[in-house]
């Protein structure tokens, strides 16, 4: 039971319908009386003028019954009575969709088309068919315009909202009423049916799983296949039986071999630090040699500079005294750093 329904007291459904009926009658009375202060939307407003005018038309026709014996006259009378009454209704207003005016136009058009041929068929169906053929196109256009108008949709929407609200209340009250009578209601049955549907869904899932298994993996197990599997299983068992002793044997051999390999690895690892130390010593020596080399380079540069200057001085002195001497020129020679320990001396004869 919903919480909403618990909050509301149960009412006899007949009583509820009576209330609805009373409210409706009040609404229609209010509308028909032309109550300007009406608060209800009148969804059938478009039909009221028509009903009223039909009644008036009937009265007019009754006033001269003898004329009705001739179908032509009767139909003309009918058309005139109807159109006059509708024109009156249209003049009185109360036609929010402008239907009356359009209806009148259509009636006039249909009348013109019908009486164009001169004779009116006596058979009611033939007459109706002719009338439909004469008016259906216009009629369709009028109705199409009407139902495609926002005003119409607005009225229909209000009516539908009102109706669904009432329907919901009535349904809830009915449920409550029958519940109080200890009778199962429609929603009770629906609840049970819902459980059945859920159960079916579970069965479907199991069926799906079976089918997937069938489709995806399995084949029918034949006697041959089973016997073959039995033989293979026996063979596997035999192999398994032999496995422990093999493992023992393997264990003894393998452990011995592993021990000797481990010792070898250990001795290699022990030699590793000593080798590393040697490498460090070599690197230190290398660094020192580098330092010595750079110092020797500096000495060599200084020596070259000194020798060059001394040779120039000697040449200048010789030129000044006018003597030609064989001079010894010290030529610096670029060599690889490690061989550049002393300058080489070469002889040249002065001109």
């Amino acid at each position: 039971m919903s919480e909403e329904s618990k909050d509301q007291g149960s009412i006899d459904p007949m009583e509820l319908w009576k209330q609805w009926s009373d409210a409706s009658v009040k609404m229609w009375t209010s509308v028909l009386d032309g109550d300007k202060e009406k608060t209800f939307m009148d969804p059938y407003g478009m039909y009221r003028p028509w009903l009223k005018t039909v009644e008036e038309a009937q009265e007019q026709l009754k006033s001269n019954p003898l004329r009705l014996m001739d179908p032509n006259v009767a139909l003309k009378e009918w058309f005139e009575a109807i159109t006059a009454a509708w024109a009156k209704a249209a003049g009185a207003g109360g036609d929010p969709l402008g239907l009356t005016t359009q209806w009148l136009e259509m009636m006039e058009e249909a009348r013109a088309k019908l009486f164009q041929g001169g004779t009116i068929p006596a058979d009611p169906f033939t007459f109706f068919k002719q009338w439909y053929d004469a008016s259906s196109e216009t009629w369709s256009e009028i109705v199409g315009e009407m139902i495609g108008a926002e005003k119409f949709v607005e009225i229909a929407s209000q009516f539908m909202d009102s109706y669904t609200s009432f329907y919901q209340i009535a349904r809830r009250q009915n449920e409550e009423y029958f519940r109080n009578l200890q009778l199962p209601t429609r929603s009770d049955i629906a609840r049970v049916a819902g459980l059945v549907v859920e159960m079916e869904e579970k069965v479907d899932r199991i069926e799906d799983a079976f089918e997937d298994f069938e489709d995806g993996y399995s084949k029918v197990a034949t006697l041959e296949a089973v016997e073959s599997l039995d033989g293979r299983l026996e063979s596997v068992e035999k192999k398994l039986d032999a496995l422990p002793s093999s493992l023992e044997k393997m264990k003894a051999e393998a452990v011995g071999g592993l021990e000797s390999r481990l010792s070898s690895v250990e001795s290699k690892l022990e030699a590793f630090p000593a080798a590393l130390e040697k490498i460090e010593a070599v690197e230190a020596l290398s660094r020192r040699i580098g330092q010595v080399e750079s110092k020797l380079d500096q000495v060599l540069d200084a020596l070259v500079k000194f020798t060059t200057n001394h040779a120039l001085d000697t040449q200048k002195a010789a030129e000044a005294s006018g003597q030609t001497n064989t001079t010894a020129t010290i030529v610096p020679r670029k060599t690889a750093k490690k061989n550049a320990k002393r300058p080489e001396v070469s002889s040249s004869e002065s001109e």
Partner: protein
Amino acid sequence: MSKDNATSFDMEDTLKKYRAGVQIMVEGAKAQTGQTPKEVIWAKNKAKLYRYEPTVEKRYPVPILLIYALINRPYVLDLMPGNSLVEYLVGKGFDVYMLDWGIPGDEDKNLAFENYVLDYIPRAVKKVLRAANAEELTMLGFCMGGTMTAMYAALFPGKPLRNLILLTAPTDFTTENTGLYGLWTSEKYFNPDHMAEAFGNIPGDLVDTGNRMVKPVTNYVGSYVTMWDRIMQDKSMDTWLAMNKWVNDGIPFAGAAFRQWIREFYQQNKLVKGEIKLRGRRVDLSNITCAVLNIAGKKDHICTVPQAEATMNAISSADKEFFVLDAGHVGLLTGSDAKRTLWPKISTWLELHSR
């Protein structure tokens, strides 16, 4: 025969015709429909999956699954012998199946498109493939059934769906394209929640009224003028009776699905925008890559041509065809014009795509 006797005979005949007409109007049309032999190969809740018994040797390995709308009854696809799309396809050597949603009860008011597209259709597809011993199938969806089929195709692209036929299936619900429905279902005037809360499932009569009001004069008056005309002229009434029975045989619309249909499709136009989500899975029509035959009717006021045509731009299929017939929503399916145009079109297209 004297003049008096002739008159009395005519009168008797006329009265007899009037009696027949009045009887139809009072009691409703009675006709044998859905007569192509079939068996139920699967059922779930109210839904049933039919397999139509072959009448000729099976010529195509790809079976066809017909998916109808949630409203109205699917037997319009198998209206009566000689006027049945199902019978025609079976006769051409196709293996034909149809998913009939059945009539939802009060307990089904919470059934939504999630249930139909993610639970029912995929299971039906599996059952069809098993029954046909096939790896691929063709799906043919009509009206809302076409929209649902397109959603399924978008969510389950690739195998086993090989071909998709959409018959007057709307995917674009832009107000300009939906005609009177667009106005009637606009958010300003229509709240689907009110109706679903009040009724649970939306009564079939109410749904029918909405559909018939699109062409009220034709549907409410013209149809009966035709009936009287046929009776008076001693013409065969079989087709008229079968169609009238179908027209008045509306079924309730499950409440939750109705809310979605109005809110998410008509009011928010989510499908063509790729915004519909079913259990969190986005329905993206561009995922559709299979071969597609999309058919619409020029005079269709329920699914207008632009509503169906929009699918062509939304899907990614390289093999796709849009075919427009000079017919209305239902007239497209049945009658002499359908035999001449729609049925051969479908059959020829399927022959090329089902080998």
